[in-house]
């Protein structure tokens, strides 16, 4: 239970306990977890993977549960859906934003003299591939 001692998320989300998630999966309660939003709390710090004395990676278990949820059409928290939609739209989890300088001046990449962000050359092909490697159900989730 070193994972739950050191887990970043466990310190701020009381019901998130990586050892418990692994134990529940082993005991056959995956269904419960797939339908719960708790699996989306992981902060991806990888401390559990690094220090587990049994070479279990609760992080990978959580990622597998998330993938399973998505493949069944269960919607992840909104932020994740937005990022995925953006990947399908522009190839990145978000588009360049306006930002504010200290003098309340709104600036964009262009105004800062930065070049345009490169996008996948054959975008349609890229998009097809992204859908193919696991985003198919997400399209439906996003549309719903």
């Amino acid at each position, binding site marked *: 239970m070193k994972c739950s001692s050191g887990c*970043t998320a466990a*310190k*701020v989300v009381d019901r998130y306990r990586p050892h418990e998630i692994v134990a529940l999966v082993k005991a056959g309660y995956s269904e419960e977890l797939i339908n719960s939003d708790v699996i*989306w*709390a*992981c*902060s*991806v*710090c*990888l*401390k559990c*993977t*690094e220090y587990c004395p049994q070479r279990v990676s609760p992080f990978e278990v*959580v*990622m*597998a549960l*998330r*993938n399973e949820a*998505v493949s069944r059409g269960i919607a*992840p*928290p*909104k*932020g*994740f859906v*937005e*990022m*995925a939609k953006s*990947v399908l739209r522009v*190839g*990145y*989890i*978000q*588009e*360049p*934003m306006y*930002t*504010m*300088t*200290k*003098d309340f001046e709104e*600036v964009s*990449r262009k105004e*800062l003299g*930065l*070049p345009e*962000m*490169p*996008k*996948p*050359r*054959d975008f349609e*092909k*890229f998009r097809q*591939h*992204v859908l*193919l*490697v*696991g*985003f198919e159900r*997400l399209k439906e989730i996003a549309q719903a």
Partner: protein
Amino acid sequence: MRFLLYLGCTAPTKQYGYELSLRSTLPLLGVELEYPKDMNCCGVPMKGISRFYPYYACARIMAIAESQGLDIVAPCNGCHLNLTETVYKLKLNPPLMDAVNALLKEEGLRYSGKAAIYHPVEVLHDKVGVERIASTIKRKLPGIPVSSHPGCHLLRPTEFPRPETRNGPLKLDRLIEAIGLKARDYPEKYECCGAAMLPYSPEAAIRVVALRIKRALAVGSRAITSLCPYCIDMLDGKQDAAKTITGDQSLSIPALYYTQLLGLALGLSERELGINLNMSPVEALLEEVMA
């Protein structure tokens, strides 16, 4: 030294200070950056959507670098981890590599694993070297105590090589000292900034970063620095939110990219380094540094 600059998502969409400071400092140290014309997201925040997508996305990035005969510099910890992990996992899993290459073939690309992947901390510490930095800078910054926050993914997992190690001094700390600042140990320097929790619960994520800022202040650090756009987005950008959520008004510390501090030592202006975009209270520190 020429590298393909693969910025990822966070740096080029909102953390402009990182990109500006990288682009303005590295060439002064003999590092040329090539900007690609074809790129995509590395997939690190998408692992929960699809564990397979990052392999495709990263192999695609590396195939582009290969086609240009360049090694990659990936300034985001998440990208650096994901690219390194892809190289490691594809080497161990030939069927996975074939599957990825089958997709890339349709886009006229091929991944073989030839391109090396560097993080700016490696470029600066291992390639440029602290001696060259120390001898190139125009002015030595005063010995102000600064805490480094390398970020999780530069340290973990040790299953494959990571740029930083918990066993011994950090490269980032050596770089801090190379420009005259004082590296101040803070106990949670190996911890997580909480950024990846934002989509689940912004409040929880901000509580995480509040803990880090509190500890850094407690050890008497006058600033906190990192070379990860996620970490600085949290440490620099979420201080007001941290004050609101925790009610602790003391959570206020200058947070800057190391390349911004380096740029100041190299004689660059605030604007060239994008320091005017930082949200944390950097003014007093800047005055002291520039005095």
